[in-house]
C-alpha cells in the first residue's frame, strides 16, 4: 500500500483512477440452513441510530456459525437495537428496542410470522407465563412516570393490558404465577423489585433492593437472586453493589451480601448450584449455598458485555475495543477456565440463548 500512496502523490496529474480497490467484497453470502436447532442464538443490538439488529446462530459443537440469520431467511432486516429474545414453544419473540416493535418468528427456522409495532415504548425484556408475554417498557428513559409492563396474548398477538410499574423496568423473570421485574432505572437509577401476579395481571408488592438491580435468576430451589450493581461513581451518590436473595413463596428478602466499595457487578447467571457474575471484565463464580462472595475471579474477558452458562461452558460476549463493526462470542471451559474458541459476530452482540 505504501507504493500506491507514493504513486498517487507523484502522479497527481494523471487522473487514471478509473476503478477503485474492490478488496472488500469479502462478505460471504451464507445459504441459510433453515434449521437452527441444537445451538446457540445470539442477539446483536447493531448500531444505535442508523443500524439494524441481527441474530447469529452457532451450533453446539461450535463448528457452524451463521450471522444475520433473520435477514438470510426472510430477506429483510430486523429493526433497530435488537435488545433481547424470549421463547414460547416453537416461537421466538425478538424485542426491537429502537423500533418499539416485537418480531414473532419460528425459533427453529427463523421464518418471520408477524411484527407487532404498536403498544410498546422502549421495550427491554420479556418473559412468558400461561400463554401471555410480559414485556418491560421504559417509556422515555428519563421519565419516571411512564414505565409499564405490556401484557401480550400470545394466541392472538394482541396486547391485553398495560401494568404501570416503577421507574426503569429491565430484567423480568417468572416462577409459577409470579413475575419479578427488576427496576434498574432507565437513564438514571432505581432500586425496586416489582412482583406481579400473572393471573390478575396486577402488582402484588414492590420490594426495595440494592441500587440498580440489573439481573435476576431463579435457582432449582425456587430462590430468586437479584444482582444489584449499585449506583455508579459518576452519580453524585455512589453506592455498593449487592446480591439479594428473595424467598419466592413469601416474596420477602431473605438476605443480602454487599460488595466491596467501588465494585459494580452485573450479569448474574445461575447454572447447577452455581452463580456467575461479571465485574470489570472478570467472571466470578460462587456456590449458591455460599454466603460470602468469591475473592478471586475465574478468568477475564477483555470487554465483557454479557454471558450465559451451560454445563461446563461459559459463552461470553466480548465487544471489540478497536472497532464497532464486530463483536465476539468467546467460549470458555469452566473445567480449565481457558478460552476454547472465539467467534466473530456482528456489531454489539447483547444476549446469549440456548436453542435445543
Amino acid at each position, binding site marked *: *500500500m505504501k507504493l500506491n*500512496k507514493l504513486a*498517487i*502523490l*507523484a*502522479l*497527481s*496529474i494523471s*487522473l487514471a*483512477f478509473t476503478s*477503485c*480497490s474492490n478488496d*472488500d467484497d469479502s*462478505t460471504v453470502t451464507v445459504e441459510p440452513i433453515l434449521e437452527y436447532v441444537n445451538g446457540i442464538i445470539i442477539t446483536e*443490538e*447493531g*448500531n*444505535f*441510530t*442508523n*443500524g*439494524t439488529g441481527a441474530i447469529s446462530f452457532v451450533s453446539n459443537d461450535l463448528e457452524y456459525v451463521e450471522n444475520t440469520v433473520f435477514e438470510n431467511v426472510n430477506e429483510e432486516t*430486523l*429493526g*433497530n*437495537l435488537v435488545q433481547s429474545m424470549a421463547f414460547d414453544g416453537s416461537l421466538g419473540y425478538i424485542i*426491537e428496542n429502537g*423500533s*418499539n416493535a416485537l418480531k414473532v418468528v419460528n425459533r427453529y427456522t427463523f421464518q418471520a410470522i408477524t411484527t407487532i409495532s404498536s403498544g410498546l415504548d422502549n421495550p*427491554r425484556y420479556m418473559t412468558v407465563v400461561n400463554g401471555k408475554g410480559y414485556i418491560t417498557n421504559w417509556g*422515555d*428513559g*428519563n*421519565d419516571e412516570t411512564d414505565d409499564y409492563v405490556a401484557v401480550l396474548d400470545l394466541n392472538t398477538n394482541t396486547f391485553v393490558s398495560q401494568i404501570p410499574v416503577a421507574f426503569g423496568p*429491565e430484567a423480568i423473570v417468572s416462577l409459577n404465577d409470579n413475575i419479578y421485574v427488576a427496576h434498574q432505572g*432507565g*437513564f438514571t437509577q432505581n432500586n425496586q423489585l416489582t412482583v406481579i401476579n400473572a393471573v390478575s395481571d396486577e402488582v402484588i408488592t414492590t420490594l426495595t433492593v440494592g441500587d440498580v438491580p*440489573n439481573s435476576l435468576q431463579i435457582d432449582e430451589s425456587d430462590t430468586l437472586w437479584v444482582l444489584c450493581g449499585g449506583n*455508579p461513581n*459518576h452519580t453524585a451518590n455512589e453506592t455498593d453493589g449487592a446480591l439479594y436473595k428473595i424467598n419466592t413463596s413469601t416474596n420477602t428478602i431473605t438476605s443480602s451480601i454487599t460488595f466491596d466499595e467501588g465494585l*459494580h457487578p*452485573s*450479569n448474574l447467571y445461575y447454572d447447577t448450584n452455581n452463580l456467575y457474575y461479571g465485574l*470489570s*471484565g472478570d467472571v466470578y463464580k460462587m456456590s449458591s449455598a455460599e454466603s460470602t462472595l468469591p475473592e478471586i475471579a475465574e478468568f477475564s474477558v*477483555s*470487554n*465483557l*458485555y*454479557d454471558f450465559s452458562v451451560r454445563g461446563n461452558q461459559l459463552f461470553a460476549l466480548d*465487544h471489540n*475495543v*478497536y*472497532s*464497532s*463493526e*464486530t463483536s465476539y462470542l468467546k467460549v470458555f471451559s469452566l473445567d480449565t477456565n481457558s478460552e476454547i474458541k472465539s467467534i466473530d459476530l*456482528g*456489531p454489539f452482540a*447483547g444476549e446469549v440463548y440456548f436453542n435445543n
Partner: protein
Amino acid sequence: MKQNIVVFFAVCYCVLSFGQTPTDSIQFLDEIELSDVKLKRNAAGFKVTVLNDSVLNKNTSTFTDLLRFNSNIYFKENGFGMVSSPSFRGTNASQTAVIWNGININSQLNGQTDFNTINTTNFSSVDIKSGGGSVQYGSGSIGGTVHLNNKLQFINHFNSTARVSLGSFNTKQYSLSTDFGNTNFAGNIGVSYVDSDNDYKYLDTDLTNQNGAFNNQNINANLGYFISDTDVLKLYHQTFFSDRNFSGTLVAPSKSGYKDFNYRNMLEWSHIGTTIQSKFKVANLHEEYKYFENKEKANFSFGKVNTLVLKHDLNYDVSDKIALKSILEYNTIDGEGGSFGSPNRQVFSATALLQHNPTKKITYGLNLRKDFTSGFTSPLVFSVDSKIQLTKNYAIKINASKNYRVPTFNDLFWQPGGNPDLVPESSYQIDLGQELNYKKINLKLNAYYITTSDLIQWRPNTSGLWSPINIAETEHYGVEAELGFKQQFKNHNLELKGLYSYTIAEDKTASQQLLYVPFHKANANLSYGYKQFSMYYQHLFNGEVFTLSRDELPFYNVSNIGVAYNLNSKGNTNYIVELKVNNIFNTYYENVALRPMPNRNFTIQTTIKF
C-alpha cells in the same frame, strides 16, 4: 449494562454548533473588506475554493446541500436537515474547522459543527481551504477549513434584497437583507427564516419521513466605521435559533426534538499603516442545545458554552518581499451541562508567520504555533507552504503541516465515561497542488497524504461503559480535481464547474476503508445565462460507502435544476422569479443507512432587489 448503549445514544446527540467566517477575494480593498486577511496573505500554497453569492443562491435550504453540490467535502446527514457532519479528505466530523470571520467556531462540546445549523443566506461568500490549518485556526483544522465571510464595502451604496420561497413539503424560506455604506461607514443586516415539514415520502415504500420537521432563524448584523484614515472599527454579530425534530429511520420511529441557540459577537479594531498593520479582536461565542428525548414532554438534557476570545494580529512588512506576522490569542471557555458539570478551559496561543517572496514567481511561508491549554499539553504545530508560478498559466502549490485536535468537554467530562487523561490528536500532512489557468479554463489538481494518531474514539471499556480513548491511527491519501470553465459570447454566459475526489481513508490496524468515506465523489455545476434568463444544472455523484458491519451503501446520482427570469432588469427595482427542482430524476437514495433522502421536490422563489 445495556443502559450504557442508551446513554451513549444520548451522547451522540450532544451538541452541534458552528459558525462562519470570512476570507476571500480578489479585490484591491481586501485589507478593509475582509476580516480574515490570513486566508489570502498566508495561504499561498493551499488550495482555496470560493463560493460566491450566485452559488450560495442555488442551495439555500441547508448548508449541507450547498457544500455537497459545490465542494469536495462529503457529508453524512442523518436525514435531510438533521445533524450533518463533514468528512473532508476522509477525516472525521471533528477534523473540519468552521471559521466565522476569522474565529474558529466548532463546538467546544463535541468538537464539530453541525452543518445544518448554519444558514448561509446572509454571508457574502463561503471559502473552502483544503488541508491543515491548525497554525492559523487552531484545533480541528485537519482536513480543511470552511470560512464564512461577511464583507463590508466602503463605497456609496444602499441595496436591499427581499426573498420569499415556497416549496414542497411545506417548506418556506423568507429573507430580508440590506447592505449600505459610504467611504467611512458600511454595514449589512440580514434576517432569514426557514421552516419545513420535511415529511417527504420514502420512495418505493408506504412510509414518509416521520418527525423530520425543522425551522431556523438567523440574524446577521455587521457594521464598520473608519475612525481615522488608518483605523477601522468593525462589529460582527450573528444569532441562530433552530428547532428540529430528529427524524426516524426506515426501521425506527422517533419522537425526539433538538433546539440550538447560538450567538456570536465580535468587535474588531484594525490599524492599517504602510508597513505595520494590526488588528485587535474581542469576541464572545455562545453555543447552547436542548435535547428532548420526547418532544411532547418537558424533560430535556442540555449543554451550553460561552467562549471569550481576545486576539491580536500584528503584521510587519519588513520589505516589499518579506512580511512577518504574530498572532496572540487568549480564549476562556466556560461550559455547563447536565452531563458534564461546569468545566472551564483557558487557552493561550502564540503564532508566528513569515511570508517571503524571493522572486516575483516564488512565494513561501513558514508558520509556527504553540498553544498553552489548561489541563493538558498541546503540541507545537507548524506549516510550510509555497507557491511557484512556473509559467504565466501554471503554478505549483505545496504545503506540509502538523495539526491537532484537542479533546472536547464531552470527551473529558461526560458522565458517565468521560476520560480526563486524553491527549490531543495529532496529524501530519503534505499536499501538492497544481493550478493551470489557460484562457477560459481553470484547473486545479491536488494530491495529499495525511496521517493522524491518537484519534479519540468512544469505545466500550472493561466495565461495559462507553469511554473515549486515544486509540486509532488513520491515514488518508487521495487526489482532488477541480475544473472551471467560463465563456461569454454576446449576451450568452456559460459557466461550468466540475469537482472530483478520490479518497482512501484507512484505519492503520485494519487496513480497511473507514466507514462512511466514499472512494469517489464528483459534482458538476453548469450555469447558463442569456439576457434576463438564467438556468443551472447541478449533479452529484456519491460513491458507495461502508456502514457499520461493513455493509455497502450503494452509490447514487442526484441532480437539481433551476431556471430564473429577471422581470425588470433596467429599473432600480429588480424582480427575479425562479423555479428550482431538486432531485429531478426522483432517485431513491440514502446518504446514511436507513435514512432515505427527499424525492423530487419543487421550490418557487421570488427575489426583489431594491
